[in-house]
C-alpha cells in the first residue's frame, strides 16, 4: 500500500504543475510510439532526413551524406550471436540513444525476448533467470545496462593499475558484485556498474579535438588518452568514464562486450561505422507547443540542420558564439491576435527565457570535483554554461568528467529507507576508502559512498570517484531518463536535481522555462 500511496501523490503533484504552469509541456509518456522500433537487419534504407514523434514533438535525424542502404551495414546488421546490432541501443526515434519507454515497449512486444534483454548486460547480472522482469529490473525501470569493468583497473595496454583506493560492496541488489563469477572478487575480477546508452549522433562535436586537447589532461595534468592509429591525444569526451579514445575503439569494444562478437570487427566495418556516426545529427525538430524548430528564420542553434552546419570544437560559454545560439529571436514576440499563434509565442518566449536562465543566471557551484578544483575556486559564482560550455552540444569542451553528485553520496538519488515504504534501493552501493598516504578527495574526504565510481574505475584515482563525462544536451526530448544512472525520469527532475544540489532556488517560472528550453534541443 505505501508504494501505491507514494505514486498517487506523484500523480497529484504532476497534475498540479500542469494546471499551474500551462507552458509546461507534458512529461514524457510511458508508452513508446508504435512503429518506431528499428530492428537489427531490417534492411530498410535510412533516409537523409527523418523525424520521429515523441512526447514533446518530433526529433529529427539528419544523415548528412544522404540516404544509406542499411543492408549489410555494420551499424544496422546483427554482428554477434545475441542478435543485437549497434542500432539496438542507438535508435533513431530516441535521438540515437534508447529511451525507457522504448525498452518497456520492446519487453512487452517481444515477451522479453528482444536481444536488448540479452543476459550479458540486459540483465542485472547474467546468472539471473531469463524472462523474469525482476532479472532485468534496472533496464526496465531505469533504462540501465550493466557495464562490467575490470577490477583492479587495467590500462589500454592491458597492464594492471594500482588504484589509490579500496573498493567494498556495501549493497548489492543485483547480486552481481558479490557473485562468485561476476563479482569483484569473482572469477572474472569485474565490477558491475549500470549506465544509460549515450546518443550515437552529433559525434563530430563529441569527438572533436579542436579545443583544449593536449598530451595532458587539462583538469588533472595526467596523460590524455591517444588515438591508437595516430598516436595523437583525444578529447576523452565520448563515454561516461572516458574509457574509449575513438569511435573505432568504442565500436570494437561495444561489439565484443554488448554484441558478444567472437571475432574483432574488420577494418572496413570500423570505418563504415565511424563514417556513419560522424555524419549523423540529432536534435529536436518540432515542438508540440513551440512549432517548427528548424525554420530558417528561427534561432540558429535549434534543429538537426543547425547541428550539421555548426562548428565543432568551439567554446560557447561566451557572448560571441553562445552554447545554443538563439539571437534573442524568441524574445518579446509580437501578438498577432491569433490564439494559436499567441500560445506558440508564449511557449517560444518561455524557451528564450530558459535559454537566458541557462546562460546568464548565476548560482554558486560548489564542492564539484574537476570544476571547483581547476583554478576557478570553490565555490564559483557562474552559470549552467560554465560546465555545459561546448558550442551546440552543451558538453564540456574537453576531458569533460566531473562529479556533480549524480552517483556519489550525499547527492545521489536514494530511496528513503524506512519501515513505512516498500521501495528498496535498486542501485549498488560501494564504499571507497582512499589511501592514507595520498591527499584526500578535496570535497568528500577519504571515505566515499557511491553508486558508480565513474572515471575512477578507469584511472584508479581517488579524486575521480563519481566523476562522469558530461552528456550532450541534444535530442533530450526523445531519450528519457537522464543522467548516466537514469536517476532523473524527466527534464523537470533534471532541473530539480541541480536546484537541490547547488541550492539555486530557481523560481517555478525559471524551472518551467528551463524545462521548455531543454525540450527543444
Amino acid at each position, binding site marked *: 500500500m505505501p508504494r501505491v500511496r507514494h505514486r498517487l501523490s506523484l500523480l497529484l503533484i504532476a497534475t498540479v504543475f500542469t494546471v499551474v504552469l500551462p507552458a509546461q509541456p507534458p512529461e514524457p509518456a510511458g508508452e513508446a510510439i508504435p512503429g518506431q522500433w528499428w530492428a537489427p537487419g531490417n534492411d530498410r534504407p535510412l533516409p537523409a532526413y527523418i523525424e520521429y514523434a515523441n512526447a514533446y514533438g518530433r526529433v529529427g535525424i539528419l544523415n548528412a551524406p544522404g540516404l544509406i542502404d542499411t543492408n549489410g551495414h555494420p551499424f544496422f546488421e546483427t554482428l554477434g550471436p545475441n542478435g543485437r546490432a549497434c542500432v539496438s541501443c542507438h535508435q533513431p526515434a530516441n535521438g540515437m540513444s534508447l529511451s525507457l519507454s522504448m525498452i518497456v515497449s520492446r519487453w512487452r512486444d517481444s515477451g522479453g525476448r528482444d536481444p536488448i534483454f540479452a543476459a550479458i548486460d540486459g540483465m542485472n547480472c547474467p546468472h539471473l533467470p531469463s524472462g523474469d522482469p525482476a532479472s532485468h529490473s534496472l533496464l526496465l525501470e531505469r533504462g540501465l545496462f550493466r557495464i562490467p569493468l575490470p577490477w583492479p583497473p587495467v590500462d589500454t595496454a592491458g597492464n594492471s593499475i594500482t588504484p589509490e583506493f579500496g573498493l567494498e560492496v556495501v549493497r548489492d541488489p543485483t547480486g552481481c558484485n558479490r557473485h562468485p563469477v561476476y563479482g569483484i572478487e569473482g572469477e572474472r575480477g569485474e565490477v558491475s556498474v549500470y549506465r544509460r546508452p549515450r546518443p550515437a549522433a552529433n559525434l563530430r562535436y563529441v569527438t572533436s579535438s579542436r579545443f583544449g586537447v593536449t598530451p595532458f589532461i587539462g583538469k588533472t595534468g595526467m596523460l590524455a588518452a591517444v588515438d591508437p592509429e595516430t598516436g595523437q591525444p583525444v578529447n576523452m569526451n565520448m563515454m561516461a568514464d572516458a574509457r574509449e579514445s575513438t569511435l573505432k575503439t568504442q565500436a570494437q569494444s561495444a561489439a565484443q562486450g554488448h554484441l558478444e562478437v567472437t571475432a574483432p570487427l574488420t577494418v572496413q566495418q570500423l570505418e563504415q561505422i565511424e563514417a556513419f556516426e560522424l555524419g549523423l545529427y540529432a536534435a529536436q525538430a518540432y515542438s508540440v507547443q513551440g512549432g517548427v524548430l528548424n525554420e530558417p528564420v528561427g534561432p540558429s542553434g535549434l534543429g538537426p540542420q543547425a547541428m550539421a552546419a555548426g562548428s565543432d570544437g568551439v567554446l560557447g560559454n561566451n557572448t560571441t558564439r553562445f552554447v545554443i545560439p538563439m539571437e534573442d529571436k524568441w524574445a518579446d514576440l509580437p501578438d498577432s491576435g491569433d490564439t494559436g499563434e499567441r500560445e506558440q509565442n508564449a511557449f517560444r518566449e518561455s524557451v528564450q527565457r530558459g535559454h537566458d536562465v541557462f546562460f546568464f543566471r548565476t548560482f554558486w557551484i560548489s564542492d564539484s570535483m574537476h570544476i571547483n578544483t581547476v583554478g576557478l575556486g570553490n565555490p564559483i559564482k557562474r552559470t549552467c554554461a560554465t560546465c555545459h560550455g561546448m558550442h551546440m552540444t552543451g558538453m564540456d569542451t574537453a576531458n569533460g568528467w566531473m562529479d556533480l553528485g549524480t552517483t556519489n553520496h550525499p547527492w545521489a538519488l536514494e530511496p528513503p529507507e524506512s519501515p513505512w515504504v516498500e521501495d528498496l534501493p535498486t542501485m549498488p552501493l560501494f564504499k571507497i576508502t582512499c589511501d592514507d598516504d595520498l591527499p584526500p578527495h*578535496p570535497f568528500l574526504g577519504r571515505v566515499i559512498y557511491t553508486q558508480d565510481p565513474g572515471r575512477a574505475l578507469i584511472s584508479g584515482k581517488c579524486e575521480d570517484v563519481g566523476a562522469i563525462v558530461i552528456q550532450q544536451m541534444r535530442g533530450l526530448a526523445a531519450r528519457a531518463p537522464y543522467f548516466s544512472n537514469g536517476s532523473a525520469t524527466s527534464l523537470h527532475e533534471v532541473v530539480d536535481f541541480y536546484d537541490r544540489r547547488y541550492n539555486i532556488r530557481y523560481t517555478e517560472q525559471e524551472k518551467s522555462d528551463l524545462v521548455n528550453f531543454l525540450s527543444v534541443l
Partner: protein
Amino acid sequence: MTLFFPLIAALGSQPRAAQPEPGERISFVSCPIVRDTRSVPCWLSEYGGNTYYLTIQSDVSAEVQPPMLGHEVLVEGIVSGTPPICGGIVLEPVRLSVMPERNADCNTLLPADERYTIDFNPRPPGPSAGRLAFAPDPTVVAEPVQPPVGPQTFNLYFDFDRSISFRHPAVLVSILETAAQLQPSLVQVTGVRGVHRLSDGTLLQESVGIAQRRAEEVAGLLGGAGLNVATEIEWQDSESEADGIDDWQSRRVTVILIP
C-alpha cells in the same frame, strides 16, 4: 541593552591590529573567505587581526587563482600600497596554495555588501566576451622564439603537499615542444620537498616522499607523452633555508633537457 553593553565595551577595548607596511612580506595559513559582490566574488583571508584581499574569481587563465572553501590556504604575499579591495589589504604579488586536508570550519561566504565594490572591470560571473580574461591579445604578434641552444631548464611549482594538477599541462607541453627542437640526449628530473617559514615563525615542511612522487610523476608523464630519452630521476629536500621569502619556489620539480 544592558546585556550588550559589556560586549561592546569589550570589543572597544581590544587593541587594534597592527597595520602592515607596504612592502612587508606576509605569510600565513588561514581559512579563505568569500565575499560576494554585484559582480564576481572576492577572496579574502584574516590574519593577525587584519583582513587581506587575495584575488577575485576570474577564469583558468588568471595568474592568481582562488582557493577553496573547505580547506585552509597558505598565503605568501607582499603588502601593496594600493587602496583596499573588498575591504581587504591588498597583497601583490600573492601566491596561494590550497592545503590538502579538509577543514569544515573554512566555510564563510559573505553576502554582497554595498560598501565593497570592485572598481576594475573583471570578467563577469558568467559567459565571457569571447576570450579568457588573461589570455594574450590575439592582435599582438609574438616575437619569434629562438631555437633552444644548450641545456634548457624548466620548473614546475606545486601546491603544498600536492603533486601534478591542472597547473602543469602548459609547462609539460612547453618541455615537450622544446625537446622536439633540442633533441636532448639526457633529461634530468629533480623533485624537491619544500619547506616554508610563516610570518609567525612556524616552519612548514612537506610530507616525506612528496619529492619522489613529484619527480616520478613528471618523468612518467614526459615519457608517456613521447619524450623517450635517457632520464635521470632524483629527489631531495629543499637545500635553501626557509626564510619566508618566496618559499613557494621550494615546492618544485626541475627538469633539465641536456643536448
